[in-house]
């Protein structure tokens, strides 16, 4: 199941949408409140600044009035006027200093009617008394017009209040200017009265700070901001201020943006028309921090509240989303369970209507799929004849049992002995009844043991027991007892026996296939040893483990010609000639060295690779036969083929092709079939044999006597030769019993027109017995071990040369097999 990115999930989307909407509303509220509050506080600051300005102006006015009074009283002083009347600058100067000491003035000037400063307290009494121009001509001008003038201005780095009044005696004879410095105490008082910062700036070749309630460091910063444009809000060293600019010269409140460029140039250049004395500005500043403190608190409460609401809304939306998504997840879970084949899960019906409908639909689907799958599994896994599981079903069940950990699983493979014969002699219907009877018997035995019985095919049954070593004993006991009795089937008493192979998991293998193979091997061992039961022998495990790599190696061996054919000659016992040899495959592995055919042929048979192997052998055999022809030693080459090969419909074509390619006679290739090979699925095997026969290929029965086939049966086959199994031959010299069997077999075979070959001739005694019994050919170590082609040719050469006197010379022309 492909899951999209996380943000595509319904839950996340719902949460985001809900939380997003709420956040939007919250942000709008916060923004609105912020703006409104800011406006309110701005207005409050503006009001405070305005009233601050009024206070400032009122204070200044009072101050100036007092100062003017002082100046007037001073100017009216008779002694002073007398001094002025003396017209002696030094006298006037001394009188001024006297007056300054009396009044506490910081500065006193006496200016004559022409605007010349006659006396100045700053000069003292020692310096020259040269008249100078009055430094504030506009002040003088205003005094002339209005009879008095006052100004507050910076003078020599000090903030100074200046008043100018006439000296009358009794008409105006000159002007007295009285200056009083504004000290920091006055500024501090103003600040404590209004909570405003006040700064006095003056333009005189750039703006200068004359006096300020601000900290000295901040003053310069503020001055830096007094440029061409003045804004009512400024931040000075991180502190926000709202401010108001007072032009002391012009009665005009500087509110909002003031263009300082519109103010007149410094004093000396100012035109009187503007009625401005100087460019003296007072900046009143309201620090917004303390004003904004409650607002900031409200704002932070709002933000926290917003955060809280957002979290809550997030939680709520998650909860809401889960109302929807949790049932969906459950449904998805159900769907994946259904996908994995679990149809037992009961679905919880969600409360939401739409989802409930969906859940019902899924539930019905689950039931329907379970039903259908049950039917399919029935067809797939069940054997219609016995009603048991078939091989596929058994494998499936076995795999399931194996997939559960920490379980002992025992697999018993049961093969009914001689079932072919039962079928042949008593009919297939009866055979079926035997199988059904066996199935019932096994089911009856297994059911209490909580095991599983299956018919794996033909006459083979599989039994699985879980955690049941003790149960296995019980089962074997019961089986033994049942095999000891004759069974009544269709009113006939039959003796039904079976061979059992046992394999244990996990000791012998972890997969169903491996266990079945093990049990199979054990079963064949049991059959071979004619005992009822054989347990898989772990010693063979190693051998089997090699199989997998062997298969790969075998393929490579075929490709790289690591395989070769050795030939064991068949000696004509009549005339001692050698015109036939059995081809035996040999594998010289580059790492493991010589590998016996017993090690890989069964495995090749199991995997089906035997077909390719057989083809290779046939082709090589044909090619070798051609080489023998070329060497002047024409031979008939016998090649073993397996049951698998006989079931391969292309075998005939292949044989034909190989013979043609090699350019040998058809009769030079003889195929040997084990008798058991023909017994299974005799129909198709027989077809193949017939076709080969028609082609003219001689056929032989190998290992005759190892199986249960009767000569009567063999007679039906298009064969020309019987090879008697070596187990009868080895003891034929000692055992009269064996000699009798061999003798009768030879007699019978001859009477049926077969040539007889004896395998395993190891001693001369045996050879002589066989010769006496009328056996046609002998094969074995007594004559020769299997030889490589070159060795064979050499051996043949030596034999021709060394033993021509012993028997009649071998004819090169081979007696036909057929």
């Amino acid at each position, binding site marked *: 199941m492909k899951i999209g990115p996380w943000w595509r999930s319904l839950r996340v989307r719902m949460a985001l949408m809900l939380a997003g909407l709420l956040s939007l509303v919250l942000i709008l509220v916060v923004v609105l409140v912020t703006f409104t509050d800011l406006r309110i506080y701005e207005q409050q600051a503006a009001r405070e600044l305005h009233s601050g300005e009024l206070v400032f102006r009122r204070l200044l006015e009072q101050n100036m009035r007092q100062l003017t009074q002082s100046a007037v009283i001073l100017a009216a002083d008779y002694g002073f006027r007398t001094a002025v009347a003396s017209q002696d600058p030094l006298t006037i100067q001394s009188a001024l200093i006297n007056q300054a000491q009396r009044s506490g003035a910081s500065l006193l000037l006496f200016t004559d009617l022409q605007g010349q400063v006659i006396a100045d307290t700053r000069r003292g009494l020692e310096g020259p008394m040269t008249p100078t121009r009055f430094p504030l001509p506009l002040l003088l001008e205003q005094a002339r017009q209005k009879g*008095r003038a006052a100004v507050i201005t910076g003078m020599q780095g000090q903030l100074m209040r200046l008043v100018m009044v006439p000296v009358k005696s*009794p008409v105006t004879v000159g002007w007295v200017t009285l200056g009083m410095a504004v000290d920091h105490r006055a500024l501090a008082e103003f600040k404590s009265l209004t909570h405003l910062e006040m700064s006095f700036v003056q333009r005189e070749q750039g703006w200068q700070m004359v006096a300020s309630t601000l900290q000295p460091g901040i003053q310069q910063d503020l001055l830096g901001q007094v440029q061409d444009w003045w804004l009512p809000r400024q931040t000075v060293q991180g502190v926000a201020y709202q401010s108001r600019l007072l032009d002391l010269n012009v009665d005009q409140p500087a509110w909002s943006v003031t263009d300082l460029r519109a103010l007149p140039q410094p004093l000396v250049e100012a035109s009187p028309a503007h009625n401005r004395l100087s460019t003296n500005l007072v900046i009143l500043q309201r620090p917004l921090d303390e004003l904004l403190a409650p607002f900031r608190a409200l704002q932070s409460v709002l933000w926290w509240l917003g955060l809280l609401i957002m979290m809550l809304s997030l939680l709520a939306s998650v909860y809401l989303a889960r109302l929807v998504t949790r049932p969906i997840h459950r449904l998805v879970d159900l769907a994946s369970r259904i996908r994995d084949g679990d149809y037992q899960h009961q679905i919880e019906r969600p409360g939401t209507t739409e989802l409930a409908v969906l859940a019902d639909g899924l539930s019905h689907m689950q039931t329907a799929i379970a039903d259908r799958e049950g039917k399919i599994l029935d067809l797939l896994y069940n054997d219609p004849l016995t009603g048991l599981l078939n091989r596929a079903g058994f494998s499936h069940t076995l795999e399931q049992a194996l997939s559960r950990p920490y379980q002992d699983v025992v697999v018993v493979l049961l093969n009914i002995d001689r079932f072919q014969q039962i079928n042949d002699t008593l009919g297939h219907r009866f055979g079926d009844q035997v199988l059904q009877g066996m199935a019932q018997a096994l089911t009856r035995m297994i059911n209490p043991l909580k095991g599983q019985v299956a018919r794996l095919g033909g006459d083979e049954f599989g039994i699985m027991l879980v955690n049941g070593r003790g149960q296995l004993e019980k089962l074997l006991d019961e089986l033994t007892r049942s095999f000891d009795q004759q069974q009544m089937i269709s009113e006939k008493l039959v003796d039904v026996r079976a061979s059992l192979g046992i394999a244990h998991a996990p000791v012998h293998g972890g997969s169903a296939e491996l266990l079945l193979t093990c049990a199979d091997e054990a079963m064949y061992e049991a059959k071979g040893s004619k005992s009822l039961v054989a347990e898989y022998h772990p010693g063979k495990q190693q051998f089997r483990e090699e199989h997998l790599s062997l298969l790969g190696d075998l393929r490579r061996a075929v490709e790289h010609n690591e395989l070769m054919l050795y030939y064991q000659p068949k000696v004509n016992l009549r005339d001692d000639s050698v015109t036939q040899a059995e081809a035996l495959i040999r594998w010289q592995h580059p790492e493991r060295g010589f590998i016996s055919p017993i090690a890989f042929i069964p495995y090749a048979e199991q995997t089906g690779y035997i077909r390719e192997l057989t083809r290779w052998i046939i082709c090589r055999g044909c090619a070798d036969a051609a080489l023998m022809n070329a060497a002047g030693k024409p031979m008939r080459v016998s090649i073993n083929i397996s049951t698998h090969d006989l079931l391969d419909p292309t075998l005939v074509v292949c044989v034909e092709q190989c013979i043609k390619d090699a350019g040998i006679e058809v009769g030079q290739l003889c195929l040997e079939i084990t008798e058991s090979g023909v017994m299974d699925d005799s129909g198709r095997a027989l077809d193949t044999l017939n076709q080969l026969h028609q082609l003219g290929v001689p056929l032989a029965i190998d290992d005759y006597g190892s199986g249960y086939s009767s000569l009567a049966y063999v007679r039906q086959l298009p064969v020309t030769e019987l090879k008697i199994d070596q187990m009868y031959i080895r003891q034929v010299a000692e055992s009269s019993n064996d000699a009798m069997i061999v003798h009768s077999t030879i007699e019978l075979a001859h009477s049926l027109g077969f040539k007889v070959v004896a395998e395993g001739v190891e001693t001369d005694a045996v050879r002589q017995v066989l010769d006496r019994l009328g056996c046609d050919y002998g094969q074995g170590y007594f004559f020769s071990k299997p030889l490589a082609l070159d060795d064979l040719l050499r051996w043949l050469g030596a034999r021709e040369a060394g033993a021509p006197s012993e028997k009649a010379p071998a004819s090169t022309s081979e007696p036909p097999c057929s």
Partner: protein
Amino acid sequence: MHKPHFELNWPLSLQHIALLLSVTLTPVCQAGSLQISVQEWGKAQAVPDAVLYLMPVGRPAAPLKPVRLPEVEIDQQQRQFVPYVTVLQTGTVARFPNSDRTQHHVYSFSPAKRIDQKLYRGRASKPVMFDQPGVVVLGCNIHDWMLGYVVVVDSAWFAQTNSKGEARISEIAEGNYDLMAWHPRLPEATRIQTISIKGNALQTLKIPLRLELPDPRPLPGLSHPAAAGY
């Protein structure tokens, strides 16, 4: 001080006729007269308290009248100098009789005459001789608003405009004169024009005066500079 004016003014019509005759008939050594009306420059408004006097051109003025000069009184009434402006010839003696019940302390820092005289009620003041020409500004050290002017001229021919702005100078000897004008609202005495006097002729003049200064007298009532604010 009104007396000499009356003396001069009474025979005016006869003198007028005689002057006309003498001008038209034979030139005899007789005295001419000037009838002057002073108006403010650019305004049809009479200027009172203007002092007009003639300064002979080329030669010192020869007094026609006897050398003994009359004594002048400058009174203090209702804490004001009365008259506000007094014009007199150099060498004239003035007195400050003080008609008020309060004391006064008359002072003058003017270079033409320094005065520092305390005036007590019912006690005769010392006469003050104005022996130098010039404007003497009178003040009272007790009452700052009191202001009076004494214009001392080196001439026998002077007059002062009345409330209609008119003044007459008579018995002027023949000759050329500079007509000078002074007023509290002028910074200094100003030469108006040159006048030629011949016989008994009566010349009539209209003089516009540009009064540059504000009226130096304080506004009526208890006015004080500090009360007007700064």
